[in-house]
């Protein structure tokens, strides 16, 4: 069975201090996978490294057993909501249409089929009445749904989402997780960075637990245990932090060539 995402020794260093160290895992397809860990544990960094937004210092990742470049049209990225300026003069429709640019490139006009897909995406997230609304007039939950609709419009096989449930009302959260489950049933793979332990067991069948380094990865039933959670959330490895500090202070190179 082809894996969805694989990483090998993935290490990203910010200002001489590793944000993620030596991350090694292989994830299955067709599941909703949660990426969890305390604040600053590198969850967003991990997603960005997989998407090629950040270059890893050491190691690499593969998507569907290939380089990301070769399968970009199969992968959709939903960034954190605050990464975007919602005052930008654009309507809901404009933003969802961006999802079609991936296949249209610079010039090709949007076809009837494109329009249909955009409308369908909007309807799946229940945003059709807001189609022409300016994005600055949306609530947090509505903004998240617009992002989701854009991702849907891409019609990808793998979806990477960074904290989609932050600042979102309960009804929207319900609607989103229902949508994600139906996407999973249709064979899509979803990789979701999440922050809330209480809902994690319900939402995810497979999990990656991160605390700058990989603590555990596997089916939820196996990794959602007291010991592993304590290791994930119980503070950083002190020795690891000390080594990181020496690296930074003394300006040592991370790998000796």
């Amino acid at each position, binding site marked *: 069975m082809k894996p969805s995402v694989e990483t090998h020794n993935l290490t990203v260093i910010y200002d001489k201090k590793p944000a993620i*160290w*030596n991350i090694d895992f292989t994830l299955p397809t067709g599941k909703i996978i949660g990426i969890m860990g305390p604040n600053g544990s590198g969850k967003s960094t991990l997603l960005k490294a997989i998407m090629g937004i950040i270059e890893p210092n050491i190691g690499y990742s593969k998507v569907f057993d290939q380089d990301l470049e070769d399968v970009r049209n199969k992968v959709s990225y939903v960034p954190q909501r605050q990464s975007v300026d919602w005052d930008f003069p654009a309507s809901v429709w404009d933003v969802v249409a961006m999802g079609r640019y991936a296949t249209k490139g610079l010039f090709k006009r949007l076809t009837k089929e494109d329009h249909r897909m955009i409308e369908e995406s909007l309807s799946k997230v229940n945003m059709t009445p807001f189609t022409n609304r300016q994005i600055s007039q949306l609530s947090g939950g509505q903004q998240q749904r617009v992002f989701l609709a854009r991702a849907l419009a891409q019609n990808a096989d793998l979806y990477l989402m960074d904290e989609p449930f932050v600042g979102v009302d309960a009804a929207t959260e319900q609607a989103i997780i229902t949508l994600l489950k139906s996407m999973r049933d249709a064979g899509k793979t979803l990789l979701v960075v999440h922050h809330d332990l209480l809902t994690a067991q319900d939402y995810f069948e497979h999990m990656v637990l991160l605390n700058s380094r990989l603590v555990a990865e596997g089916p939820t039933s196996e990794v959602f245990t007291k010991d592993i959670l304590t290791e994930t959330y119980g503070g950083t490895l002190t*020795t690891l932090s000390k*080594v990181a500090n*020496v*690296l930074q202070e003394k*300006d*040592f190179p991370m790998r000796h060539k």
Partner: protein
Amino acid sequence: MEFLTEIWSFFTFSEPNVKVVFWGSLILCSISGLVGTFTLLRKRSLIGDVISHAVLPGIALAFIIGQQKNPLYLIIGATITGWISTYLVDYITKHSKIKNDTAIALILSVFFGVGVLLLTHIQHSGNASQSGLDQFIFGRASAMNMSDVWLFSIVGTIITILIVIFFRGLSLLSFDENYSQSIGFPNELLKLILSITTVTTVAMGVQAVGVVLMSALLITPAACAKFWTNKIIPMAILALVISGASGVLGSAISYTYNGMPTGPWIVVVVSLFAFISAFIGRKNGLLKKYLQRSKNNTKILRENTIKLFFNPKTLGETQFSFEDIFAKSKMQRATLKKGLSLLKSDKLITTNQGTYTTTSLGIEEAKTIVRKHRLWELYISKFMHLQPDHVHDDAEGIEHVITPEIERELEKELDFPTKDPHDSDIPY
């Protein structure tokens, strides 16, 4: 040579006007350095830029209304428009979707444009004393007179006293505004004091440096000081001294070359101070960084070379010829030669007719390095859940970083292990 005699004549006050220029630039620039420290710490260098450009219309208006080049009126006019500009930037940012940097660019250029329009209008209406207003664009310290200097001294003293009195509050505000608020410090008052002192400093300082370059005088001295200290009091004092010195030197140079505006020379001098500090400064200075790197590289080379002498069977003395040890290593010939000479001077090996033998010191050192390597391999394979074949490369790099303290911690956390992930012995 003639340049030197001219500069010398400046500093010996051989002409009466020189005294004025000297003191005027010294006072104006020193105050800018002091006030600029807070501007820099609060990351508001752009606001400094706005104020500097915005004083121009105030100066022009003061002239139009007062019909003369009275320094007090001009400073008041400058302070008013300078003040309005900061207020407008904040107001626009707060009450519309316009972002802060856009508001800054807009206010800065529009106010400057209004100033230019008024200035050129004044020039074309043939008013006799107006020609002096040009100096505010790039600064002309030589146009100052004694009463100007008295005014600067008085205002400058007031500003300095204010800053000294409120120093603690201003420092905390610059460092952590939210915390300062939470402990009940009068943030609004402190911000007001900073605003007023900054605007007034700029309003006066443009006489020496001019409108366009004034912002440099707020930022650069403080940035320069940052390369020498992390503590705020020395930083403020150093910024004051550096900018004062730049003011004097810059004025001296522009005085020597008649017809040159002062502002650019002062900025060039203070920028050079900043460049030099960036190289030799004690905090983040480039030189220090290179020295540290070189020290690191020496350590790494020494340890990698002695590692080659490690004897896994006897843990004792080993002996190699150059070719043998070269075959064992992955280094270039020249690098290995360098490493071996390092070991020799550190008395970790002895040489005898082409063979290299470890000393007892060398044996210990080799054991230590291998031990650190294997401890780290064990640590990351255990705590990072890595496969044994992934841990070696990591340890190759990290083994040099592990201090004795970290080593002891590793031993404790791993419970004094005897074998590494490849099942080799860990030498103690």
